[in-house]
Structures are given as C-alpha cells and as structure tokens.
C-alpha cells in the first residue's frame, strides 16, 4: 500500500502532479484526495503540495527543470539518511551518530584506497566498517542497555573526533574523482546529475518494501510498539535493534561517500554533518514516523526530505536573505507540522490509521 505511492512521490515536484491537484474538486479527484489522506504519508503529501503550489505561484522561476536539478543535491542525501533513520526510529530509538558516520566514511574510504585497494572493493570495505559502527551502536543500546540518545551521542563525538584526527583537520580530494572530467565511478556514485536521485529512490523502495512486507519490518514495528510484548511473543528484540542500527549506519556511510564523490572533496566539518543529522531527523518526523516508535514510513521520510528541499530552494529563489534562511525554515517547519497534525486528525477520523 505504502509503496504504491513511491511512483508518484518523486514526480510530485514535476508538472503532471501539480496539474492533477488543480481539478481536485471533481468527484474522482476528491475520492483520490480522501484516499491520499488515509495514508500515513497523506498529511505530509498535502503539506508538500501546498508548499509547492505556494512557491510556484509566487515565484516564476521556481517551477522549472533547473530548480528541480538544484533541489536534488539537497534532498537526495537527506532522503537516504532519513530512510535508514526510519528503521531506528520505528523501534522507538534514535541514532544521533548518522551525521558523524556520514562525515567519517569518505575519510575511511580515502585511507583504504591509499592502501592500494581498487575503488569498488574499497567502497565495500568502507561500508562493512560503517556497518560495524552501526552494530556497536546497536550493541550498546540492546545489550548494554544505554539509552540510544546517549549511546549514539557518544558515538557522534567519537567519530567526529576520529575524523579530525584521521584527516589532521584538512580536506581531502576524493579518490576516483577528477575535477576536470567525470569518471565512470564518480558518475555512478554521486557525481552524475541523477545518480543520487536514482540511489535515493532505489534505497527508499527497497527499505519501504522491507518495512511493509517482510518479517523484519513486522518485528521492527512490534519492537517499537510493545517491546516487552514482542519479546514475550518470541521476537528477538536485541537482534532487531542491532540490525536496524546497522541499516541506519550503512545508509549514512553510503551517503557520505556519494556526497564526497559529488563534490570530489571531503571536508572534516563536524558542525556541517550534524546539521545534516538534524535535518534528516526532521525529515523522518515530518514524514509521519512516530518518535515514540511503532509506526514508520520510509516513503514519508522521502517526502519529508522533499518538503525541506522545496522549502530551502523556494526561499532561495524568492531571494530571501541568507541570514533569514534558518529563521524562515524553522517557522515554516512549525507551521507545516501544525497543518500536518490537523490533517492527521482528519485522517484518523476518517477511519484508518
């Protein structure tokens, strides 16, 4: 059910969907709108559409291929980060270390390539190392019993520190990339115009399918909904937690590499990466995943990321002074979330949820 909307989600910032919302007063479209609202992602879809229509109507330059392309580097990494975070937040935990994992992974990759290992095996090795980092998070939470907020906060500082130590606080040139030409490797892993979009959509579809249709997803919801009950029913709660932290770290590490390849350098800047962490968490929550656990949607998180992207891009095109960017962003998030809550009430009132 949830995956069906994936096909429409990426297109929602392109003309066909925008037009579809115009004759929404008709019977068929009205029915469609009602069905839309019964989805967990329904409210954020509506809010995103409203934002899109607002910027399209008030700025002439907004609704163009150019601005869509400009949107991608902002929204795609966020969507992938958020997709992994959904798995952790659906269990009622949170992973604050994704920004730091995102930060350190290109530097790990750089070191491994420096050992003389080819690019693809280096990438795989990097992802394996990142998975171990996620597993450590999971072990602290599930076995040691540290609250995930604290455990992953510790991991955040450890990895930020490790990045600064490893890099001597100096930026690196990403291996496999070149400033002059786009190598095939670079094109495939982030530098191609639509490379990140394809990865984002692929990862979102796979993870949403796992969450909605597999046992793993069922247990993820069960652990988030009633941890003791899930354990009594025979669900291996610890395994589910560790596994989900691994997924979350893996997506973060992968985005780190995609982004470093895209700009062909990696800068050891912990404050920037933690900004991304907060935006990813915002995308997850805006998308409809409960902070308390028990309900989550990867597609919703993608739309949440899209919403944040449209908002930032729209404010830029409107010519809002850069100083006001965060202020407007914050206010807009609060307004959008308020609308979200009301739409959600309509939704749950309409008989599903």
């Amino acid at each position, binding site marked *: 059910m949830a995956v069906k909307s994936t096909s429409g989600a990426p297109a929602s910032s392109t003309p066909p969907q925008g037009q579809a919302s115009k004759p929404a007063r008709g019977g068929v479209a009205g029915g469609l709108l009602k069905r839309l609202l019964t989805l967990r992602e329904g409210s954020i879809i509506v809010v995103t559409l409203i934002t899109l229509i607002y910027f399209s109507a008030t700025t002439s330059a907004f609704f163009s291929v150019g601005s869509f392309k400009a949107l991608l580097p902002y929204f795609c990494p966020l969507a992938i980060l958020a997709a992994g975070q959904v798995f952790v937040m659906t269990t009622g935990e949170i992973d604050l270390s994704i920004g730091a994992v995102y930060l350190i992974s290109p530097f790990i990759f750089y070191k491994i390539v420096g050992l003389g290992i080819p690019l693809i095996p280096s990438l795989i090795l990097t992802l394996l190392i990142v998975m171990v980092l996620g597993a450590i998070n999971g072990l602290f939470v599930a076995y040691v019993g540290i609250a995930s907020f604290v455990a992953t906060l510790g991991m955040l500082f450890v990895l930020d520190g490790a990045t600064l130590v490893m890099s001597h606080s100096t930026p690196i040139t990403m291996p496999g990339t070149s400033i002059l030409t786009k190598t095939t490797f670079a094109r495939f892993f982030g530098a191609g115009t639509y490379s990140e979009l394809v990865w984002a959509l692929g990862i979102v579809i796979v993870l949403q399918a796992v969450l909605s249709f597999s046992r793993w997803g*069922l247990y993820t919801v069960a652990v988030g*909904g*009633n941890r003791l*009950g899930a354990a009594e*029913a*025979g669900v291996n*709660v610890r395994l589910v937690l560790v596994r989900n932290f691994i997924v979350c770290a893996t997506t973060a590490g992968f985005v780190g590499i995609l982004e470093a390849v895209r700009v062909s350098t990696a800068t050891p800047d912990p404050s920037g990466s933690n900004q991304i962490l907060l935006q990813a968490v915002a995308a997850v929550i805006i998308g409809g995943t409960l902070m308390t656990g028990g309900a989550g949607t990867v597609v919703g998180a993608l739309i949440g990321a899209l919403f944040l992207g449209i908002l930032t891009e729209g404010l830029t095109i409107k010519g809002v002074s850069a100083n006001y960017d965060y202020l407007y962003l914050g206010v807009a998030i609060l307004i959008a979330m308020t609308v979200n809550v009301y739409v959600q009430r309509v939704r749950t009132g309409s008989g599903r949820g």
Partner: protein
Amino acid sequence: MAEPAFAGEKIVAPTSAPDDVLRVEHIAKRFGPTVALRDINMHLRKGEVLGLLGDNGAGKSTLIKILCGFQKQDSGEMWLKGGPYQPKSVDDARTHGVDTVFQDLALIDQLSVFHNLFLRRERLHRPIPFLNNHLMKRDARKALDEIGIDIPQIDVPVARLSGGQRQAIAVARTISGDADIILLDEPLAAMGAKEGGQILDLIDRLKDEGTVSVIMILHNFVHVLASCDRVNLIQDGVIGLDKPTSETSVEELTEIVVEEYRRARLAAHGGNGAGVADPLAAADPLVVTDPADVVERLTAADPETTTDSPADSARE
C-alpha cells in the same frame, strides 16, 4: 530443600503421575533480595487443566515465565514428555509445544489482528520471503471462527479492540498454534462475564478433546472449581496445596487465604505467628472472617504486580 517459612508449613514434595507431560522439581528463583520462588514441585498430566492460585506477588507469573522460557530459574529441573526440559527462549519452548498467554497479552497495538495472531508464525510468499497477508487473513478468520470468537474486522490494529476482544485474540493466538501444553496467565483479567464465559467454554472444549494440557492462573475460586481438574496454590514460594478440585471447595480455598492474610498481618505487626494469641483479629479491618468477603476482594484485585520490572525483562 527450602526451609519452612513458618512452623507447620506444608511443602508439597515432588509428585508425579504416569501420564505426566510436564514436571518441575525444586524450582527456585530470586530477583536480587526478593525470593519469588523457593522450592516449586509440580506436575501436569496429559489432558489436564491445572489451576494455579496464590496471592498477588506469590510468584505465579514468575513460574509461568520460567515454564515458557522467558526467564530462567536459579535452580531446579524440569522434564517435558519424559525428557529434560530447559527452554532457551519463548521460541524454543514453542518448538517443544509449550505456548503461553501472558498476563499483559503480548499484543502489538499498532499491528493488525491477523499480524498479531501470526506474530512469530508468519506465513510467507515464495521465493521472495515477503509476508503473505492474504493467506494470514484467511487462516486468521478460519482460526477465529473455529474457536468461536467474533472479531468483525481482522485487518484493523488491535488498539481498536475492546479489552475482552484483545484478550480473546491473545488466547486465540496460543490455542490456534500447535502447542499441546498451554500456559494461561490470568486469561479472564480484562473480561466481562460473557466474554470470560466464552474463554472458559473454550478451555472446557480443549479439555474434552484431551490432547492439550493447560496450566491456568486464576483469581476467582468459582472459575477454578468450574474449569480446572486440579488446583495448586503457591504460598511463600512453594506449592502449599495440591488437590483435585473435586476434593476442595470455595470455603477451603478461602480459609487458606484468610489464614495467609492473618499471618501476614501478624508478621507486619511484629508477631511471631503460631502460638501467639491473635489480639488483632477483632480490631483489624484486614483480617476478615467472612469467606465471601475475601472472595470478593480477591476477584476484584488489581492485576498482580510481579517482582521483576518489565523494562529489565525486555532487555534480556
């Protein structure tokens, strides 16, 4: 061997019958300084319904959790169908045919009725191991119909259901499995008379079929006498009474409980139990002599609070 907690205490020695499916000997369990079970000896015969009684906090739920593999005893041994039995997990116990309805029902509010019914027994598609919701819905409907539980919609989250319906689903989940030993921890706690009657009818039907053996924690003596073949009473961490229900009565069970209350009050006031005249009996409102009053109080009692914290158990 456990030391008697007071003079004249009766401890049921290990007993057995030739057709035992489950036997436990000298089971002990403590949580830090709190002794939950001191020395439990108990057996369950094939096709039998055994009622487990005891005061709140007596360790009934702890015993059930040990039997079903959720917790491990500190000492003592268990046998299942002739072989040694030490379940490593709830799952492991289930593969041995032991399944449980927990006091908190172990339902996931956010999941649908049929997902809850099939939690840990999911039906999957092949070759891609996705959930076969269609098949699960069909089988869930069939199982509920067979049991005779009326749940109008099975694809809504269980959060939408009434307390009684939720309880019915928890019971249905266990009964519709392959288990031949079923443990029920207060299956009637949240139920009205009508729904509770349905569950007891269900237990009676299982008893008639004779293939399933049941251990059931109950608070209501009338229910115990109506549905159980035999009754075990846990007192101070041991089985203090083991009798067929045909040889006991509400009056006898009540008398034991009244005695327990009296002893607890005496202990709380620094008395040393046996041998001391009971000066508090008349003045103390808690020492009740009218059995009916005690029955009422017990049946209205809050759900038992176990000595272990739920959060700790979840981490285990």
